[in-house]
């Protein structure tokens, strides 16, 4: 067993979140002190070194997915944490919330097919510059499941060009494997500083060989590493 310190990673729970326990379990196995934090909290636990916004259907996806969760008390604390450089990972509904909150560019729309998709997809790492992808290498192909009805990332031509120039398009579906019609096959994007990553695939469902791929551990493990580094830096 590693004797490295277990950094505190907060997993935010909204009404309608449903992947929070899987995220917590996966993070704990990867060496984090993962704690679930209810959406009504005005502050994150004081030693929080990383944040995960998990998948689900927060607030019933009313109006637009992620649009209402943006106003929850805890999200103001998450925004402040992210702006201060703290590592934040948004998975599926968490990605939708981060775009609505303005922490990540673009928006997630209903799948082009209008069908809910639930299957393993090949995802290519475009850039490993973000600390949240540090365990990956560029052009690496990961197998991670998606399960969403509104995962069609959209940005207009100007935004896409800007993100490509900045290296903010972090993950793309492999050619021919786009499950939702997203612009440019985008599966995940990072913010300009690289400390906030949002993706539609679910790394927390790909951490145990019993369930197939363990590629998700590369992303969640990167988050745990980043959280551990931010603790070390603040001591």
């Amino acid at each position, binding site marked *: 067993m590693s004797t490295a310190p277990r950094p505190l990673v907060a997993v935010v729970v909204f009404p309608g979140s449903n992947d929070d326990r899987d995220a917590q379990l996966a993070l704990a196995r990867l060496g984090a002190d993962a704690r679930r934090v209810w959406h009504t909290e005005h502050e994150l636990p004081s030693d929080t070194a990383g944040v995960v916004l998990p998948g689900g259907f927060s607030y019933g996806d009313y*109006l*637009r997915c992620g*649009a209402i969760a943006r106003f929850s008390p805890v999200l103001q604390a998450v925004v402040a944490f992210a702006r201060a450089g703290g590592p934040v990972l948004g998975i599926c509904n968490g990605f939708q919330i981060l775009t*609505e909150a303005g922490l990540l560019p*673009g*928006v997630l*729309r*209903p*799948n*082009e*097919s*209008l069908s809910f998709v639930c299957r393993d997809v090949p995802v290519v790492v475009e850039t490993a510059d973000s600390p949240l992808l540090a365990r990956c290498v560029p052009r690496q192909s990961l197998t991670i499941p998606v399960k969403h009805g509104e995962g069609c990332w*959209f*940005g*207009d031509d100007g*935004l896409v060009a800007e993100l490509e120039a900045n290296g903010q398009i972090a993950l793309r579906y492999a050619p021919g494997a786009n499950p939702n*019609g997203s612009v440019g096959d985008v599966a995940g994007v990072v913010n300009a500083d690289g400390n906030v990553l949002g993706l539609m695939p679910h790394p927390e469902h790909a951490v145990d060989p019993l369930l197939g791929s363990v590629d998700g551990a590369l992303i969640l493990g990167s988050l745990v590493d980043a959280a551990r580094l931010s603790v070390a830096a603040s001591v």
Partner: protein
Amino acid sequence: MRATVLVRPKPGILDPQGQAVSSSLRHLGFDVGETRVGKVVDVELGTNDPAEARTQLESMCAQLLANPLIEGYTIELGGE
């Protein structure tokens, strides 16, 4: 006063829901071209001043009711 906000997918934005509706309408035998699906938000406002109401509604649309990347909106003031 009351107001209605109509939120629509922006021109040029693919609207798969609209496509599904138009194909269903054609299936029923209607001669239709493109169909676009949006949202209606009826709002009861605390003010009765039309200019103030419009200012508030614009702000609501910018902050919550529409996502400017993909949606446009029109405001209709009406009722008392």
